[in-house]
């Protein structure tokens, strides 16, 4: 039996940059990429959705603040509410936070620099959620190290102390920035994120936001492939939603 190719919708906003890489990465990983325009109300029958990186609406007001009101986002919010898998990458993560689909916010980096380099993240927790749902599909062994690039000026994850406590207690920290050998410390925190957080899950484990760019790290001809595990989660979660 050949594996089903799930349809993965990639939303393009004005100012999105990484939508094409995301579409290409989906195809490389065995999915069927589908473009979704920001004014579309339909997600084109997608089994999962990617909100790609970039600078939607010029990052005006706040990163993601305007994109979150795009017509396509109403559909994405409804899709996520219904358990649909959604991956927000960089600006996509910022949009999900603004939309209230993920907790916290992403603010200006601690240093004065836009950071653009390869880093390592450690897998902290797979998706939570009911055992029988797609949510149980793990991203990789906990503690696995993924080599992925970051490129952002506003990637410092912040949340209230109470929210951070809830996230940690519920195992909703997906990734932390770390050294190449897996040590989490301030020296390997590229932007000053609270608790070195590089990615978080929503409560039901079907929405994931990450600052690093998995879509730039899937093709072995081009470098490390730490992004594969992250996209693999999305594709598996998408397949799990498709009736056999």
């Amino acid at each position: 039996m050949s594996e089903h190719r799930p349809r993965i919708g990639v939303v393009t906003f004005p100012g999105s940059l990484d939508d094409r890489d995301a579409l290409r990465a989906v195809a490389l990983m065995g999915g069927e990429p589908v473009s979704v325009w920001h004014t579309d109300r339909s997600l084109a029958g997608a089994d999962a959705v990617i909100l790609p990186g970039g600078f939607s609406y010029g990052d005006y007001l706040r990163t993601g603040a305007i994109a979150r009101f795009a017509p396509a986002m109403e559909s994405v919010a409804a899709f996520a509410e219904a358990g649909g898998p959604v991956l927000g990458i960089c600006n996509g993560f910022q949009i999900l936070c603004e939309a209230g689909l993920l907790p916290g916010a992403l603010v200006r980096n601690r240093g004065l620099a836009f950071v653009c380099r390869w880093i390592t993240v450690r897998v902290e927790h797979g998706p939570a959620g009911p055992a029988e749902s797609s949510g149980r599909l793990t991203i990789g062994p906990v503690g696995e190290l993924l080599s992925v690039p970051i490129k952002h000026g506003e990637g410092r994850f912040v949340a209230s102390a109470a929210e951070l406590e809830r996230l940690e207690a519920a195992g909703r920290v997906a990734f932390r920035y770390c050294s190449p050998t897996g040590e989490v410390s301030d020296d390997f925190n590229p932007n000053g994120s609270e608790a070195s957080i590089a990615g978080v899950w929503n409560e039901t484990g079907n929405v994931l936001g990450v600052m690093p760019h998995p879509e730039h790290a899937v093709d072995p001809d081009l470098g490390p492939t730490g992004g594969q595990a992250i996209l693999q989660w999305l594709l598996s979660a998408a397949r799990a939603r498709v009736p056999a």
Partner: protein
Amino acid sequence: MNVHVVVGVRLKEGLLDPQGKAVEAALPSLGWTNVSHVRVGKEIEFDVDAPDEAAARAQVTQMAERFLSNPVIETFEILQVGEMISLSRSDERPG
């Protein structure tokens, strides 16, 4: 009536403000060595067509809560509600 409104938005107290830090670090080179605790916020200015100022204020409060500020990281303050010539209108005046 057109009600002129100014909303101020600031980063929450205690949240690191790298922009403020950068401004603060540059001040001594201009000779101002006695400035500390610099924070950079923003001001959003617009006109609202509302029946009266109270109605405008109520609407602007909602706008600020839902859109102009993000309660996770920012606080807002309505700095002004009242008729005056807005900057945008004076911008449009022929030179």
